[in-house]
């Protein structure tokens, strides 16, 4: 069953065409890794899926909710809000709320969006912080957490909404190298627990070992897609070969 499906999804900023007729599908329990050179439109694509950017052409479906570029803005907004309650997003820069503790960050959506009782929300929040290995940090403010810890809180915050899919936009790119591992291992555990994930990353080892499917994007188009083995060992296109050469050089 498809959790995400896009139909010729397109996006332009003024005159700049960033996404050109993208067709991608993510099935339930799948881990899809989105690769591509910087500026190819990976972030924009993820942001379209939860409405942080408006699409300008085509349509997409998330968890059965269909959004078409031709819908009037008001109607699209309502659908997007619905979609956001079924998707979790993890940002490169964490974007934790600095004025709230780790636990406060995790339960914020439960309190305001789901209107949950405080004690119920705290119960869920504590469980999730435990899941990302941070139960001892629940009362700590983000400024006193390491980058790796902040990102794990951000993952817990996204999980709190009980999403059908998690979107990751380069979750480890802003981290010091020694902190990357702790975030990736949380993501691996999520994958093992059957979470559906769409991940933009430059961590090739993670992609090879965890992905069910790799999608390679360049200049706003899907150039190649397939199993990680097929993509990494037998890339078909010149673009993909060049990209893999550049990645492995450093």
């Amino acid at each position: 069953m498809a959790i995400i499906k896009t139909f010729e999804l397109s996006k332009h900023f003024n005159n700049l065409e960033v996404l050109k007729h993208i067709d991608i599908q993510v099935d339930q329990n799948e881990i899809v890794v989105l690769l591509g050179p910087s500026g190819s439109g990976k972030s924009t694509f993820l942001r379209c899926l939860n409405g942080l950017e408006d699409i300008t052409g085509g349509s997409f479906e998330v968890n059965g909710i269909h959004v078409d570029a031709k819908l009037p803005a008001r109607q699209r907004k309502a659908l997007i809000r619905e979609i956001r309650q079924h998707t979790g997003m993890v940002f490169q820069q964490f974007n934790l709320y600095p004025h709230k503790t780790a636990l406060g960050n995790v339960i914020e959506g439960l309190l305001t969006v789901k209107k949950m009782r405080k004690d119920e929300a705290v119960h869920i929040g504590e469980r999730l912080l435990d899941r990302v290995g941070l139960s001892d940090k629940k009362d700590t403010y983000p400024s006193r957490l390491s980058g790796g810890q902040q990102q794990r809180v951000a993952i817990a915050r996204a999980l709190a909404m009980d999403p059908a899919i998690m979107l990751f936009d380069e979750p480890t790119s802003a981290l010091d190298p020694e902190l990357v591992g702790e975030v990736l291992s949380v993501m691996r555990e999520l994958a093992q627990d059957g979470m559906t994930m769409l991940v933009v990353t430059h961590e090739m080892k993670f992609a090879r070992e965890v992905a069910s499917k790799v999608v390679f994007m360049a200049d706003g188009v899907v150039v190649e897609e397939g199993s990680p083995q097929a993509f990494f060992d037998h890339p078909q296109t010149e673009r993909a070969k060049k990209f893999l050469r550049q990645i492995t050089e450093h």
Partner: protein
Amino acid sequence: MDLIFENLTFLLKGAYYTLLITVVSMFFGFIIGVIVALARLKGNRLIRGLARIYVSIIRGTPALVQIIIVYYGLVDYGITLGPLTAAYVALSINIGAYLSETFRGAIQSIPKGQTEAAYATGMTPWQTMRRIIFPQAARVAIPPMGNTFIGMLKETSLVSVITVTELLRSAQLLVAQYYVYMPFYLSIAVMYWIMSTVFSSILNYVEKRLSKAY
């Protein structure tokens, strides 16, 4: 010296009005400031335009002129305000414009990622403002707001021209009665200075508390 002690209650009453006018104008100015800041950031073209014109006019004209227009000018249109009411109205409108700029800057200083993170969990724009942006913007806005307050404390002396007996006019009345200048003007200067200093140190304390809260 004796003259001052004899008339101290009169002067203190003036100080009380100075403080009262400052607090009341600050209170309504705060409300106006928040509304105008939101109008400029979130309103449609018309509302944004109106808010911008309001801020531009207030900042581009002397407070003294604004006070005189509210008190004397509005009479031509059948609106007669008492001196104290006119002072509240004019100064609230005046502070509102300055505070709206403070608030707008503070809201804009919060990184876009904060809004996006809140939206991504399904929060509405208003929930995001209230729960995520305002608390952070408040911290940014409090120090300049304190400075506006202290500035206003001194600016209230302008309403003496519309016969509000605040601190300055108290002194003027005493001068007219006793024909000596320096003792009265010096003593109100000291009183302004004491009030400003007290509020400055309160502000310093608040700023320190704010900077270590998270």
